């Protein structure tokens, strides 16, 4: 047997495998997951499209009805109200779409290779595991983020009549994360959480379960505790009103001495009010009575105008978090001892 004369590799190593070839690999291996995303978002998108067309007539009827608030207009507005209830159900369902899309594409990316042992094939090919990981993570991250972004544009358009009729404020917690840049950012975050969990846990199903739990915890913590602190809230006497619905998240009363008082005290005061006040259909009558007795209502809120500011803050930190997690995934793939 003769020794093989292998030419020494050129300085800097051989010319790397082109990204286009790795794009094909990514497509071939993840096309089922991507098709699932397309069917899910496409199906929901088609539904939104059809509903939006049907809502349009009901919305025009409401918008053109004068005088608003009359009994006749209340009857005219019934179909629109019924569409609104459907829209609220839809809103609830859509909360889980980012995590479904992100995690089901992200978590199996590395976990399935590690679980089935095929990483020993994939990571010993000529392209190298670094290029392999970068190609897959970047391409799939772009794909799911773009799909989610397009879907949330459609949703914004679908929901626009309800905003126009002041049924909801744009900062409302159940709507905020479905619009603007937030929906895409939460999808990207779910993908990144899934990807890093896949490398760490090394098994597909446990990685999916863990990512679902982590993402849900993060989303709840953000909606309940974090988001209202993006900017100092505004404080107003009374209620900020509903003509341009702001996001009100704190309301309390102060008594005659300026100290906060409990709800029970207010109920007691109102209970002593004359019948004419208690039975009044005008809510301002009670407020006026309380003010006359030196009880003041206070509200903390964010005005609607802060929508894009908040969107970019939340989208920004989610983007930074996602990029950090994706970088961690690549680092873990590189150094992972097989």
């Amino acid at each position, binding site marked *: *047997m003769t020794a093989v004369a292998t030419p020494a590799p050129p300085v800097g190593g051989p010319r*790397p495998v082109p990204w286009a070839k790795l794009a094909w690999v990514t497509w071939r291996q993840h096309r089922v997951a991507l098709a699932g995303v397309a069917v899910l978002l496409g199906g929901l998108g088609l539904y939104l499209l059809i509903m939006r067309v049907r809502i349009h007539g009901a919305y025009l009827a409401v918008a053109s009805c004068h005088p608003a608030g009359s009994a006749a207009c209340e009857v005219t507005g019934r179909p629109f109200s019924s569409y609104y209830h459907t829209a609220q159900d839809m809103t609830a369902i859509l909360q889980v779409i980012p995590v479904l899309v992100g995690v089901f594409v992200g978590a199996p990316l590395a976990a399935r290779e590690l679980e*089935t042992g*095929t990483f020993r094939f*994939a990571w010993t*090919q*000529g392209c190298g595991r670094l290029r392999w990981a970068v190609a897959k993570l970047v391409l799939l991250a772009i794909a799911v983020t773009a799909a989610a972004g397009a879907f949330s544009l459609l949703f914004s358009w679908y929901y626009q009549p309800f905003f126009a009729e002041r049924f909801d404020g744009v900062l409302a917690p159940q709507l905020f994360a479905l619009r603007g840049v937030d929906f895409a950012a939460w999808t990207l975050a779910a993908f990144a959480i899934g990807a890093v969990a896949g490398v760490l846990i090394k098994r597909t199903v446990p990685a999916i379960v863990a990512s679902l739990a982590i993402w849900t915890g993060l989303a709840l913590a953000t909606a309940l505790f974090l988001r209202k602190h993006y900017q100092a809230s505004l404080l107003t006497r009374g209620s900020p009103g509903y003509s341009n619905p702001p996001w009100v998240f704190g309301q309390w009363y102060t008594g005659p001495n300026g100290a906060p008082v409990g709800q029970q005290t207010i109920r007691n005061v109102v209970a002593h009010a004359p019948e004419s006040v208690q039975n009044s259909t005008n809510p301002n009558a009670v407020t006026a009575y309380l003010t006359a007795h030196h009880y003041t209502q206070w509200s903390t809120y964010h005005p609607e105008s802060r929508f894009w500011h908040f969107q970019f803050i939340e989208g920004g930190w989610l983007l930074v978090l996602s990029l950090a997690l994706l970088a961690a995934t690549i680092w873990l793939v590189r150094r992972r*001892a097989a």
Partner: protein
Amino acid sequence: MNVIEAAGLGKRYRRSWALRDASLAVPAGHVVALVGPNGAGKTTLLHLAVGLTAPTAGRVTVLGGVVPGTPAALDQIAFVAQDAPLYRNLSVADMLHLTRNLNRRWDQRRAEARLAELAIPLRRKVGRLSGGQQAQLALTLALARRPALLVLDEPLSSLDPLARHDFMASVMAAVAEDGVSVVLSSHVLADLERVADYLILLSAGQVQVAGEVDDLLAGHRMLAGPAEAAGDVAERLAVVHVHRAGALAHLLVRSNGAAEPAPSGWESSPVGLEELVLAYLREPGAGALPGPSARATQDSGVPA
């Protein structure tokens, strides 16, 4: 050029060392049998050589000084892992397409010709191929990359005798065709005895024997004689292993060739590879590490 060169190489998983202080140099152009009992560190050594894992201690280089796992190394080394992991849900044709796109060098004609010869249908799903066909497909994918070094981890363990024979015939054909260097591991020496011309014996995480098979066989003899005289012989000759059977003792000794006369009262005979390996496995303290390992340390200039 050495296709694999290690100096003081060690790998620890959590608390235990899978491979410890391994020094060896495998010259190019050989079919190397990496033999040892289960858990001896064979897979660890191969994973270190193909860059799947990083050493805890020491260093390893491949193909004349290239660091494993770097683009230059990956480009020229094809690895078939144990049980030949492939994507079971892909068709054979897609598996070829995938591997082509994961590599810079690819010989589609060679791959297709080999599969046609083996009668492996291109449209069948990988998961529906037999074990032997999957192993052959993995080998085909590896060879189509035109590697300088082919590394096979336990390639025969899950195959039936006929598939084993066919698989080894394929490997030997590739060796004859383009002179690829081959390293294969097995815990069954008999699988490799006929084809390997270089032997590395690993036991308990350490390299116990390394060298060309012809040199190893020429450098050992089996002596048979009276058991009570075994101690005297051991004082004069380098005895690897003593096997006593009643009044008779069999001694595996290191020698300078058959020309050396046997001690009086002893009968000398050449040793077979299997006997030699078994003798060393029974004596974990004994080692036969000829020149190359020492040279590796000097060449690399890195203290172990």
